[in-house]
């Protein structure tokens, strides 16, 4: 008689073509809003005869991001009150961790949208593609945050990456942009292949691709011959390593960071890292926690060389975007400290680091985008000579953001470094913590180099170089007029004194100011953010 129910079940499976799992929309609502916003914007603009105005696109993107952010906060209350849940047949999860990643990514999209707005106007790029691709890419990162299944992780990874490949190529007037996109695409596709292969091997070894089930399998079974599993794990690590730009999988980073349009670089540094690390932390710390004796040593080595190489090679760079690319590699090393600890504290620290780093890096690239001038060309360190006398506010913002990246107290960068170092020492990796802090000191050197250049007076006449002349358009500067107001081709109002570069456009100014504010305010008063990160636990806490 026992057969009967199972027979009935089989019959039911045979009759219904597709078993549709129950979908709890709240768990994926932020992602759907981001994608929906993207679709709405592109749909609307395709119905119009002429390209949609940038102002509209930016406003809609900001609206979308804000809506997604609000929904994430709803999720937060749900998680706080009714705990973490898996949804959609265990494919996605809604826990504190995923909510924090959603908040992070939506904030990053928000700031990138306003910073990118100024770039689009200056470069005279029409159409909604930049914002749409950014929203799509962000939704990919959010998918990686909620993914509870290796297949969903892969799905998110691809959504994130493919949009980013296009974004990297977004400046058609620069050959480097296309080159960067091609490099990113080839290496990214390669790493995706490695990643999928890793999933296949893990599936072969455990019989499931679902993350809690993998953990469950590992808890119930002791694999005597775990070569297949470990090989899969290694391939997953390589695949993630590409996304988060860990040495030795970092080779694409400097070229792509340098070649991509500058606001895209900022977005890429924040969101691609966030997505990659979110999935990496979830997969390794919660699913493969029992195998930590196997993966901790390689991650230790990976973190160590990532930290050292990122800091040391950045010293040699003469191009600020390349320099920050290596600095972002150094930061990836810091975030790896949290992973290496393989503890709840480590995850919390990594998440906090990612969160505050996003604001720092988007703000930094926002400033760089403005300094680079029309055409997004001037990225040599020499461009920054005397910036403080030309544009004191911009220089001040850049100094704050760079000092934050260096980890100076009363900025979020310091709290982040303190968190990861505490996690590392707690996890018993004191040596790695020492390495990390020494590289932070090395890194301080190249951040300071930019700082010094900005406060070194420019040689005579340097203030009236090409950028000013171009930005002021045809308005011939008269020597007696201290302030010029010119209307550029793209419609941006440029205000500047004779010896200064054009004033900061409103969008970028807002975005950068927001980043600086977050960096300083939560550096002095870290309680809300650290508490947020503290409660952002994984559903399967280590």
């Amino acid at each position, binding site marked *: 008689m026992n057969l009967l129910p199972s027979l009935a079940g089989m019959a039911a499976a045979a009759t219904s073509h597709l078993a549709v799992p129950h979908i709890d929309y709240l768990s994926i609502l932020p992602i759907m809003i981001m994608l929906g916003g993207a679709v709405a914007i592109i749909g609307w603009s395709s119905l119009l005869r002429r390209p949609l105005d940038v102002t509209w696109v930016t406003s809609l993107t900001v609206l979308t991001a804000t809506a997604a952010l609000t929904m994430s906060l709803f999720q937060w209350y749900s998680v706080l009150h009714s705990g973490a849940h898996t949804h959609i047949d265990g494919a996605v999860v809604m826990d504190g961790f995923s909510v924090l990643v959603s908040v992070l990514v939506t904030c990053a999209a928000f700031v990138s949208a306003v910073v990118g707005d100024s770039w689009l106007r200056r470069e005279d790029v029409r159409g909604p593609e930049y914002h749409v691709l950014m929203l799509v890419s962000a939704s990919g990162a959010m998918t990686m945050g909620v993914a509870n299944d290796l297949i969903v992780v892969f799905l998110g990874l691809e959504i994130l990456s493919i949009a980013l490949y296009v974004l990297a190529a977004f400046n058609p007037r620069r050959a480097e942009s296309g080159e960067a996109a091609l490099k990113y695409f080839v290496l990214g596709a390669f790493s995706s292949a490695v990643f999928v292969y890793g999933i296949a091997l893990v599936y072969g070894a455990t019989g499931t691709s679902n993350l809690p089930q993998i953990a469950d399998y590992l808890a119930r079974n002791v694999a005597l011959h775990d070569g297949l599993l470990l090989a899969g794990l290694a391939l997953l690590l390589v695949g993630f390593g590409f996304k988060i730009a860990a040495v030795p999988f970092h080779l694409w980073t400097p070229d792509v960071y340098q070649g991509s349009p500058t606001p895209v670089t900022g977005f890429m540094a924040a969101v691609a890292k966030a997505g990659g690390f979110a999935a990496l932390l979830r997969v390794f710390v919660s699913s493969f926690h029992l195998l930590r004796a196997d993966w901790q040593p390689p991650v230790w080595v990976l973190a160590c060389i990532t930290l050292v190489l990122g800091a040391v090679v950045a010293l040699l760079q003469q191009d600020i975007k390349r320099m920050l690319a290596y600095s972002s590699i150094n930061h990836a090393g810091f975030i790896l400290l949290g992973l290496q600890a393989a503890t709840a504290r480590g995850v919390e620290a990594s998440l906090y680091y990612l969160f505050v780093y996003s604001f720092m890096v988007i703000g930094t690239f926002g400033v760089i985008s403005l300094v680079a001038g029309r055409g997004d060309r001037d990225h040599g360190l020499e461009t920054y000579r005397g910036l403080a006398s030309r544009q004191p506010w911009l220089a001040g913002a850049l100094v704050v953001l760079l*000092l934050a990246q*260096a980890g*100076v*107290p*009363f900025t979020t960068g*310091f*709290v982040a*470094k*303190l*968190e990861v*170092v*505490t996690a590392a*020492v*707690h996890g018993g990796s*004191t040596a790695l*913590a*020492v390495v990390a*802090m*020494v590289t*932070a*000191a090395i890194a*301080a*050197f190249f951040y*300071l*180099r930019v*700082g*010094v250049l900005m*406060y*070194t007076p420019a040689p005579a006449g340097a203030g009236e170089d090409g950028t000013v002349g171009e930005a002021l358009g045809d308005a011939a500067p008269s020597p007696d007029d201290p302030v010029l107001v010119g209307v550029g081709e793209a419609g941006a109002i440029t205000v500047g004194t004779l010896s200064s570069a054009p004033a900061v456009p409103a969008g970028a100014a807002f975005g950068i100011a927001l980043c600086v504010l977050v960096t300083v305010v939560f550096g002095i008063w*870290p*309680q809300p953010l*650290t*508490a947020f*990160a*503290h409660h952002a636990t994984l559903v399967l806490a280590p």
Partner: protein
Amino acid sequence: MGPSTTFPYLTTLVLLPAGAAVACAVMPKSMSERAQRRAVLTVGTLAMVAALALAVTIAVEFRVGDGGYQMQSVHQWMPQLGVSWHLGVDGISLFLLLMAAVLFPLALLGATVRQKSRSYVVWLLVLEAACMGSFVSLDLILFFVFFELTLVPVYFIIVGWGSGRRAYAAVKFFLYTFLGSAFLLVGIVAVAVIHDQQTGHLTFDLVALQSTHLGLASQILLFLAFTAAFAVKAPIFPFHTWSPDAYSSSPTGGAVILAAVMAKLGTYGVIRFDLTLFPRAVVDLAPLLLTLGVIGILYGAIVACAQRDLKRLVAYSSLAHIGFIVLGTFALSTEAVTGGVLQMVNHGLVTAALFLLIGWIWDRRRTWRTDELRGLQRPAPILAAMFTVVMMASIGLPGLNGFVGEFLVLAGTFLTHRWWAVVATTGVVLAAVYLLWAFQRVFHHAPGPEDEHTRDLGWRETAVMVPLIGLIIFLGVYPKPVLDRITPTVTALVHHVDAATGRVQPPVANGGVAAAASTAAAGGTRASTAASALTAACRHHGQSAWVDGRHVVCHAAVTTSTRRLP
């Protein structure tokens, strides 16, 4: 720990300069350059004078004879990380606080800058807040935050208003200290984590961490990590190479603060954190640090002899004086440590005065080279007189403050580490050599054609100098009120080290014979000074017998201790 005062003195002391900095920073730009300059100078001076008044109030409210932390204020700051806003003052930090409060307004008024006054004043105020914060923090992370925060204003002051290779000097300074701090941060976190593992409570509070049990190996490692940062900041030989560059490239005000106040952060850190947290490592590694201190004294003095640049000369002499502080700290007798603390204050006052004076020489002559200056005494007698007093204090002439500190340090060191004290004494002689040489070259002889019309000090400069000279003389003639407040804390600290290590030192070194005979009150410094001379005498006379009962006690004490000391 006594009843907490109702008014949060220390928090106010830290926040007052910070608030003034914000006020100066947001001052409307529409004012004319001159009006703005006057406004920021007024706000800055008022804030600094208010801070001084507050510091004096703290000193008045300070309970004499209490060796613990007073006027504590505790608030949560980052509860997830166990970091709290815990401030407190004791005998060691009290006078550093006062010294900083005195020196900041003098540095501001004594060395004004011509351009960008607003940012200069803002940075100076931020620096004051950070220095005050460092001296009163009783939470390790809070201390680290302030300790690191001092770098930023100094960096900008050197880059913005310095001279010579200022960018190079600023970056070198920042990086050296930042690198040292990297070890300090990991060390701090490691102590807290060990404490967490022992008690299940993550905290960075110094008072709580004091009870952490640390093995000797971890104590040594942690001691090295902490001391790396402090040695760079102080600077202790051989970590000093940034300091001559930074001192000579910074503007006068910056140099005053760098050498007089910020150098003390390093030596203060050693006393406050190393001695409290790692007593066993301190005792084990004391010979190493003592040797570095002595090398610093000799090396600084010898290099200073060879300098032809007044500012670099003062920079190297500063290295030598820091050597005395290190010597006092690691000699680990009550007198030596008291002397070390006092010497921190003395060195601050004297170095600040020296930097201000040579800054004024620069204002007049645009040179610091001793071979280009001659016979300044005739055109500028007040300058010369002031320089003489300050120089004599630096040499250690009795009656001026330098003598008291150096004497206590040397006497205290002689008790526990005789040969180091003997070698270090030559440093006193060398100090006389280079300072007198420099003084002769610059002030004596007939003035050259360019020197003849050197302006003497104006009323404003004299007004800046008078308090410094007054303090130098006061501390030299009547140091008792200061020593009365320092000694209980130092005695408690040395007892803490002794208790943790099982070390037994000459009872005379722990508060004097009188204390051993249980007759001494808490502030028996004069007794202890006398006792140290007595002990030295005892040792000189070897095993000779003394009739008086008190001297027999002394004799017995010395012999027992020599036997028990490793």
